[in-house]
């Protein structure tokens, strides 16, 4: 940790956490944290004429772990699309080699996020059995702080407790598993459906029975939501709903979101939602098939706008050749049937599954264009930007390196129209979507809400990330944008967000003029929920490892050395 003092002087500060919108001011950092002031010997970073924001917070991205690596392994051709590669010997320049486009290697992942001024990234799905792998990748990823969400929605223990309505046992199991895997919170992917996939089946409605487990997606979602609030975790449940990616799914999405009405938030971390609904673009589809496929963004967002207990992230399509990957095993199998490309599947005993299929979002294909429009419409229809976050569900709808492009589209009608004009089926796309009629252009303040203060608060990490108040972590991005004189050319907005003029992470300058200058100091963030000992759950776990699992319990628990530099969030649970 840098002990030196730093001051970022004279920039237009945009800090929604403190409701500061473009005021000229200084940001002081000492010992890796933001402070009121520093001594005159502090190193000065001149930000005059530039925008100053907190480091970015990514609420949902697949960057580390078995399915990401399955994607890297099975796509050598993705390396040919790598784009910018530093010349010369990487090591000679002081960096590790970078590789990959849609599924970059860990080194490139860390460097690219840093170049974009991101300080925290949430790995969106960690299979508990494979947690040591996730942590091995995280500790090899430079600069950025990371955490990982273990998946619970198809876990045999969870389904077994919840069918009997045992929220307390579920909570005790969750607390144990978060500790065992050094996980952050509760991820749910296609609840019940992925468990059904163990037999090649799926659940596509809230009341579809889960084969052999006598429960339903509705029961799983509600039960986990209650267990989450029972424990008072920093984050809410984080859900990828059933029936992802299919025309007409918006109604199921709204029905699932309505389940949030039954539970009130309870936590000490300033979080206000009880459900985070992820990559909602993939869940906002109208129509009865691909022929009459159309946007359901308005209907879905109308509901989200009314219910403050919900946060969402977008999952914007970016027109790239990318690699889809999700714990929604049946979906990937279905997708492979549509595009006939290679398909990897990883079913994980007792816990979850995952699938990987390459995918090309082709601007000449109407459906892809409509998906693109839906992602942006959701943001443009949103009334509370601090509950709506920028993601591409990396790498599913596009690589995370396209966030700047998504931001450009959100901030510029001109940029959206230019993309719309490039479509072969422009008129059909306009008919099936709302995008052409929306004039709204988001402000830098709103973008900062969507990429900084909002996601930090949603994760219960608002005291550390996403803002510039004294006491918070010293993660600051300087953007080459003039707040008072924003460029007419939207490409310049994209460029400014792609390559930070300067990025300070943990009080240390890691990026200058868009290029990485230090390998930084990263942290692994995890949640330690302290619940009273639960003899039944302990017995159930021991028994399951004896009978059903193929690894020994003693080797299942992630050892401390795999998560060096931990930042542990303690949660005291009253019995």
């Amino acid at each position, binding site marked *: 940790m840098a002990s030196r003092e730093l001051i970022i002087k004279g920039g237009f500060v945009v800090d929604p956490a403190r409701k500061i919108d473009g005021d000229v001011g200084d940001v002081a950092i000492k010992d890796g944290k933001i402070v009121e002031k520093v001594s005159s010997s502090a190193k000065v970073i001149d930000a005059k004429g530039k925008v100053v924001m907190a480091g970015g917070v990514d609420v949902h991205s697949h960057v580390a772990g078995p399915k990401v690596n399955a994607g890297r392994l099975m796509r050598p*051709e993705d390396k*040919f699309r790598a784009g910018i590669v530093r010349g010369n010997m990487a090591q000679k320049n002081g960096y590790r080699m970078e590789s990959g486009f849609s599924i970059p290697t860990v080194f490139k992942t860390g460097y690219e996020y840093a170049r974009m001024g991101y300080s925290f990234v949430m790995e969106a799905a960690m299979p508990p059995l494979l947690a040591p792998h996730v942590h091995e990748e995280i500790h090899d990823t430079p600069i950025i702080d990371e955490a990982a969400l273990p998946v619970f929605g198809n876990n045999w223990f969870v389904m077994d407790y919840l069918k009997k309505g045992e929220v307390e046992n579920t909570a005790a199991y969750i607390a144990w598993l978060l500790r065992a895997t050094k996980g952050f919170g509760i991820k749910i992917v296609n609840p019940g459906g992925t468990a059904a996939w163990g037999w090649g089946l799926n659940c596509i409605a809230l009341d579809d029975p889960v084969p052999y487990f006598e429960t339903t997606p509705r029961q799983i979602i509600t039960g986990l939501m209650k267990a989450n609030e029972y424990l008072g975790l920093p984050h809410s449940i984080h859900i990828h709903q059933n029936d992802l990616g299919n025309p007409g799914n918006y109604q199921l999405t709204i029905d699932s979101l309505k389940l949030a009405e039954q539970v009130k938030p309870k936590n000490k971390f300033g979080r206000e939602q009880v459900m985070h609904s992820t990559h909602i673009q993939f869940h906002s589809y109208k129509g009865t098939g691909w022929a009459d496929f159309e946007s359901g963004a308005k209907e879905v967002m109308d509901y989200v706008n009314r219910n403050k207990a919900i946060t969402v992230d977008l999952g914007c399509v970016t027109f790239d050749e990318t690699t889809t990957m999700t714990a929604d095993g049946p979906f990937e199998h279905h997708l492979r049937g549509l595009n006939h490309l290679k398909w990897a599947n990883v079913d994980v005993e007792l816990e979850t599954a995952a699938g990987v299929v390459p995918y090309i979002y082709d601007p000449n294909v109407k459906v892809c264009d409509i998906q693109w429009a839906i992602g942006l419409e959701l943001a443009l229809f949103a009334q509370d930007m601090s509950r709506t976050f920028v993601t591409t569900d990396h790498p599913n709808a596009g690589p995370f390196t396209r966030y700047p492009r998504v931001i450009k589209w959100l901030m510029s009608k001109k940029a959206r129209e230019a993309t719309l004009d490039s479509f072969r089926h422009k008129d059909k796309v306009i008919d099936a979507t709302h995008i052409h009629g929306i004039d709204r252009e988001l402000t830098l303040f709103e973008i900062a809400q969507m990429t900084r203060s909002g996601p930090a608060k949603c994760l219960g990490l608002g005291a550390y990330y996403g803002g510039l108040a004294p006491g918070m972590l010293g993660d600051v991005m300087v953007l080459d944008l003039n707040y008072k004189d924003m460029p007419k050319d939207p490409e310049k907005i994209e460029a400014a967000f792609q390559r930070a003029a300067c990025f300070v992470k943990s009080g240390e300058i890691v990026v200058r003029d868009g290029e990485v200058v230090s390998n930084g100091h990263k942290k692994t963030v995890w949640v330690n929920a302290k619940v009273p000992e639960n003899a039944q759950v302990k017995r159930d776990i021991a028994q399951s490892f004896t009978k059903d699992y193929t690894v020994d319990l003693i080797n299942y628990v992630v050892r401390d050395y795999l998560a060096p530099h931990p930042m542990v969030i303690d949660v005291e649970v009253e019995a």
Partner: protein
Amino acid sequence: MATVTLKPIKTPELIFEGYSITPDAFAGKTAQQIAGLTGHEGKIVTTIGDFFEVSGNAGETAADTDIIINGDCARVKYIGSKMTAGSVTVNGNADMYLGGWMKGGKIYVTGNVDSFCGIQMQGGEILIDGDAKNHVGCAYRGDWRGMKGGTIRIRGSAGNDIGTFMLGGTIIIEKNAFIHVAPHAEGGTVIIKGDVEGRVGGQMVKGDMYVLGKIKFMMPGYQKVGTVEKEVDGVTQTFDHYIGDLGERHPKSKGQIVYANLYLKAAA
């Protein structure tokens, strides 16, 4: 038209990656500048001049540039790779990736070529007087977009993996081939004038194959549907027509399922 002549003066200790030996890289350069173009020998950055004596200046554009290499290039990779126009003649053998990712122009090799000749080729012509090793006109590992266009003619024999994941273009092997002809292909034409050991058209979706010799082991997923007359490489002959690979998926066109075609020269 301008001709640049390269004469090998030194055999590389390891292998010379001569990715700059293309009309596109040479275009607009003098002999001296060409000698300074880079290549790699292991991690060492070397130049064309380290291994060749260069004479003659290049033309203004690739299309105006002919390259003649007088001597053996059995340890020089990537000759003519990614070229778009002009020509390369190798009077001798050539190593891997000859004409790889090529878009246009002509390459002629009087000797043999190693593997990956014409990998992911999009256009142009490759003519080899001798034999080719494996992976003629194949896709790069993992890519489902193999050869898209152009012609590769091998006057000798070729090894395995001919036209893997091929989408278009033509490959002609004038003598024999070993195994795996057009696996996973979804287009294009492969002509084998000699015999093939087997595995012709395995997992093939679409495209045409002609075998003028014998196939030792037929794929079980191919079924004979008739006998046809076809003109192949200028000669009209009678073929047994097979469709397949029946185990593989196949697209529909105008309500009809499209299969890959195997034309095996009918017994006289």
